[in-house]
């Protein structure tokens, strides 16, 4: 099977004040195409850092990270933005929607960067919002939506450019358990039995074991456990 993500001795160090923080300290990990992997760990374990490196939002201090065989270390800033645009879809704990834009505009924005013409992107934004169950809320601004609805908008946005991998960073962290359940079901549906790779970062072992095929546990920037469910 192809590797969706492959990291080799991946490390990310930074200084905070005078202290050197080893956010990630030699992680070698492989995620197969179509796999649903949970990254489990406490706060500061390095799981979000790992996710950001895969997303191409950050660059490693040492080691390498390749997505679908492409080494991100060799990419320019522009190529990294293309990687984020085309290969990955990001879902955040705090949704990160643009407050002045409607749900549809937020989804369309991602396609705007990809140069999709207006008509096509408006149509696709509508379809995606329907797909995540927000058919009637296209013209609402984030403020007018509940947390769960906002996260659905953000998932629709992540899907806008039809990425290979969905990267979800604590997507249920700000949601009540019922809504969280719905969001996780949605992510599972998007994984669709191996059609799309999903990497889910969480601090909640039950969430990881419930929807991930494999759970990787991080502690102090290292992998300490791996479990198939």
């Amino acid at each position, binding site marked *: 099977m192809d590797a969706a993500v492959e990291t080799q001795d991946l490390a990310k160090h930074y200084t905070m004040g005078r202290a050197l923080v080893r956010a990630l300290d030699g992680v070698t990990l492989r995620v197969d195409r179509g796999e649903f992997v949970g990254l489990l760990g406490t706060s500061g374990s390095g799981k979000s850092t790992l996710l950001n490196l895969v997303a191409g939002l950050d660059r490693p201090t040492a080691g390498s990270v390749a997505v679908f065989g492409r080494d991100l270390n060799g990419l320019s800033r*522009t190529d990294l933005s293309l990687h984020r645009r085309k290969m990955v879809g990001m879902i955040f704990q705090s949704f*990160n929607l643009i407050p002045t834009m409607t749900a549809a505009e937020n989804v369309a924005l991602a396609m705007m960067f990809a140069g999709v013409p207006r008509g096509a992107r408006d149509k696709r934004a509508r379809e995606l919002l329907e797909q995540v169950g927000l058919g009637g809320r296209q013209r609402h601004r984030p403020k007018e939506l509940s947390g769960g609805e906002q996260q659905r908008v953000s998932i629709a946005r992540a899907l806008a450019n039809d990425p290979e991998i969905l990267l979800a960073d604590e997507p249920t962290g700000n949601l009540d358990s019922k809504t969280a359940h719905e969001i996780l079901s949605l992510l599972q549906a998007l994984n669709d039995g191996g059609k799309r790779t999903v990497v889910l970062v969480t601090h909640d072992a039950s969430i990881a074991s419930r929807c991930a095929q494999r759970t990787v546990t991080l502690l102090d920037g290292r992998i300490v456990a791996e479990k198939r469910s």
Partner: protein
Amino acid sequence: MMLSDTTQLALRNLREAVLRTALTALGVSIGIASLVGMVSFGVAIQDQVVGSFMRSGLFDSVTVTEPFRAGPRAGGRGRGGANAFRQQVGPSKQAPADTRLDEDALKKFAALERVVEVFPNIRVPVQVAYGDAHEFTAAIGVPMSARGRGVFQSFAAGRFFANESEDACLISQDFASRLTDRKPAQIVGTTLTLAYASQGNSADAAAAMFPGMPPMLPGGLNIQRNEKTFRIAGIVERQGGPDPVAAVFGAIMIPLAKARAMGSYDVLSPQALLRPASDKPSYSTVTVRVARAQDTEEVEKKIRDMGYTAFSIADVLKNDRRAFILLDLFLGLVGSIALTVASLGIVNTMVMSILERTREIGIMKAIGGSDEDVRRIFLIEAALIGVMGGVFGLILGWAVGRGINYGANYYLRTQGVPATNLFLIPWWLVAGGVTFALLVSLIAGSVPAMRASRLDPIQALRHD
């Protein structure tokens, strides 16, 4: 990302902060208004001065005179200005001896490269009789080639001479109003009589012309009075003529051939008066017309090398031009001060806007926006502020200029001075003003936009 989308994003960002955008654009407007106001004032002044020369259509002609004779004072403590002028327009050092402005000289000038036409400037002192009115002036000989050029472009009534042999004349509107109260259209077609002097043998005739003067002038010159009737063919709007001197004094103009026939020598010129009658006729000044205004300098030089004195309006204006460029530059600099302050306003607005929207920038980058996309959004925002400010600034500058113009002219009229336009906004200033506003705002916006584009997305996403 498509430019139309980028522009739309920039526009919506500006709309989100209407007040800030409006105030910043207003700052730019004031800057542009002051710049446009200053420059348009300079342009108007320049137009007043240079424009009157320009309209005379004399830029392509060189005026040639016989060389200045070095008098006793010339080499010594003469007036500095006169000496300088002499050096500038006078003949070259190794000037040939024969420098009379006769028909042979005219032929030599005509043979020069780039010369289109050579004609003598003949001014015949005349007494004009029109009805009961009598006026002393000089009738100016106009070559047929002057048709449609210079002052002969616009007639208040009538038209140019039909042919050279016509006993027709043109008069300036100003002169016409001195002769009669009739309207230009009514004057055309009527006749006037010119009395003029010519060399003759009758002492009685001379006595009739110049009562009280000795009938015989030194050198055996004899003067007689003649009269000739001319039909008024047309009335030109402005005073003028085919050469610079005529441009100032030209009140009545007749075909050149007629002027030659009336007396090819100039009674106002001592050289002509004192020359023996047996001599070939010569002229006090000659106009040499060249193909293009740029050619005047070269032709002037060649004529000076022949030993004559030559000058053109282009010479006079060359120095004026330099002064006006300096004036415009100075006014522009003063006007730019406000614009400089306004550009700082743009920087401030952009920095604020980026600070406020840091998180948004992080989001845009996380979902695939490139550095260039972010940079362009902010740059276009700055550019839009600049263009809005520029357009509004032009309107503002124009309105203020109109206001000052109105006030100043009101004052001028009370002082009996005719109204003039003190502010001129030519098209290049409109285009230049908006372009300049755009340029300044792009420069002002470039550093903030660059900073926005270089933001680290992870840091930006953590920003509240």
